[in-house]
């Protein structure tokens, strides 16, 4: 095991009385693909937001390559090599797909090089055909892929993917899984992947972390997680099926399950 790329220590974030992320201590090595699961409202997105600096933590800290990054502005953290995609998709909707991705590439390149890098990345994620289309005109799955391309162009060492496979068809999911794998294998990029689709998570990730009510209740290999009593409890309590059997076309059910989990 190498020294951790990312380390959180007792990371906590409160919103008023609600503790959205509660004392999470986690470390991720370079080039790992980690799944982050948990019912809706468990704090997954908030956890990502703390990592990339969109919110300051209420307590605890985040270290990236051994340096403390919590409290820094997001663009500083992006430059260090940590960025994310947005669950609700936050593209520059009036701009073309290419311009969206170029903006990410400008972090490390001048405009000419950024354009070339953006085109190559669009090619890689299968969006070359829509490069000139306005981002706002794309379908949701396409937008999510633009998010991935834009984030990749910032040359991350660790990329946080927040439900980029939502609403994808199984073959589209396979494409994303293959893409993430190849990015890790060829470029050594590490990933933390939030996804409701259990089959996809199990297939893609070597390690799964489970959040419930903001607390980390599981961390281990997929098979171990799938059979962990607390994890099953958290899901079953919310009316979820066993996580290793969940999946198929039911990712939209996540929301309903989460409300159940809260009740």
């Amino acid at each position, binding site marked *: 095991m190498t020294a951790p790329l990312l380390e959180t220590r007792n990371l906590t974030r409160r919103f008023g009385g609600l503790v959205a992320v509660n004392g999470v201590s986690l470390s991720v090595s370079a080039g790992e693909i980690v799944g982050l699961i948990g019912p809706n409202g468990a704090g997954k997105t908030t956890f990502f937001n703390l990592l*990339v*600096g*969109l919110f300051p933590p209420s307590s605890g800290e985040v270290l990236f390559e051994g340096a403390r990054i919590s409290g820094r*502005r*997001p*663009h500083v953290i*992006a*430059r260090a090599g940590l*960025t*994310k995609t*947005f669950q609700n998709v*936050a*593209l*520059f*909707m*009036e*701009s073309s797909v290419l*311009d969206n991705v*170029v*903006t*990410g590439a*400008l*972090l490390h390149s*001048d*405009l000419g090089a*950024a354009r070339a890098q953006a085109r190559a990345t669009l090619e890689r994620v299968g969006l070359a055909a829509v490069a000139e289309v306005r981002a706002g005109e794309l379908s949701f799955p396409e937008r999510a892929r633009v998010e991935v391309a*834009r*984030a990749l*162009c*910032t040359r991350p060492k660790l990329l946080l993917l927040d439900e980029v496979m939502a609403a994808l068809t199984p073959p589209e999911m396979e494409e994303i899984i293959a893409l993430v794998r190849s990015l890790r294998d060829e470029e050594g990029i590490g990933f933390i992947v939030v996804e409701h689709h259990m089959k996809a998570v199990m297939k893609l990730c070597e390690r799964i972390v489970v959040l419930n009510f903001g607390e980390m209740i599981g961390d281990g290999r997929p098979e171990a997680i799938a059979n962990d009593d607390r994890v099953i409890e958290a899901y079953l309590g919310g009316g979820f099926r066993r996580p290793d059997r969940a999946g198929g076309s039911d990712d939209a059910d996540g929301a309903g399950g989460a409300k159940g989990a809260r009740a």
Partner: protein
Amino acid sequence: MARRGTLAAYGGLAILFALLPLVLDPRGYEMRVLCLVLLFAALGQAWNLVGGLANQISLGHAAYFGIGAYASTILQQVAGLSPWIGTLAGMALAALLALLLSVPTFRLKGHYFALATLAAGEAMRVIANSWSDLTGGPVGISVPFNPGSSVWMMQFQTVRPNYYIFLVTLILVTALFWRIKTGAMGYRLRAIKENEQAAEVIGVDTYRVKLVASLLSAAITAFLGTLYAQFQFFFDPDTIFGLAAFSVKMALVAILGGVGTVAGPLIGAAFIIPMEELANSYFGNSAAGLSQFAYGIVLVAVILVNPYGIVALFARLRGGRRRDRASRGGEARP
């Protein structure tokens, strides 16, 4: 190819405006109106740098404009300094004000930002009115008269030289705007406009980008304030720091023409300034308050009806025609 066509159109326009004074009375009313058109086109373009590209709608740019006008005029009065030099002080002061304003306003968006900048402009007006020792107070201030023509003192027998100074400035400011819009900074400003959080997360230093654009915009606006002072020879706090006279009008020029576009302020100024002159001559000066009211109405109407301005209107009409043609083509197919 489209780009070369556009460039040719701008070149043709510049040549037309360069030749226009040759056929006009150099002391005439038309020349004065054209000077104002060029001035407001340049003001709209400077405003567009932040208001247009980053959607930070400032309603306080008169603060920078007035600072430029006062700085060069006061330095001329007390030290006999050339306005070309005095304006540098004005530009620096305006940039300093922009820097100070950036601290409380950078987290503000939309209406809150607009209101905060509006307050800043009004504050400058109040200061200029009450700090009589420096500014001459509410009675206004005059540029010291120099007989004869002097490029160095920016004073001329007719407004023809002023016209050319305005024209060259407009061309330079437009070129700068185009350069920024199409360059890396333009990408970053648009990212801020369309989603500031996402821009930060992918590595855009949003505060710094906004600050650089604001400083440029403020300094250019101050320079234009000096040009205006040397053109008008007299001004008072209520005019130069005025909400309707400058702050809103320069925003309106850009917004009406097409916010964030190169052509927008040019079209907006060519439309608004002559309209205003017509209205004034029709209603007479007794209805001076009317123009303020009219601006409010026009601004609201534009934002409600067509927030993207005249440029977009033309683009849409053209696009509509193209679509018509395409659909007709479709029908023709078997």
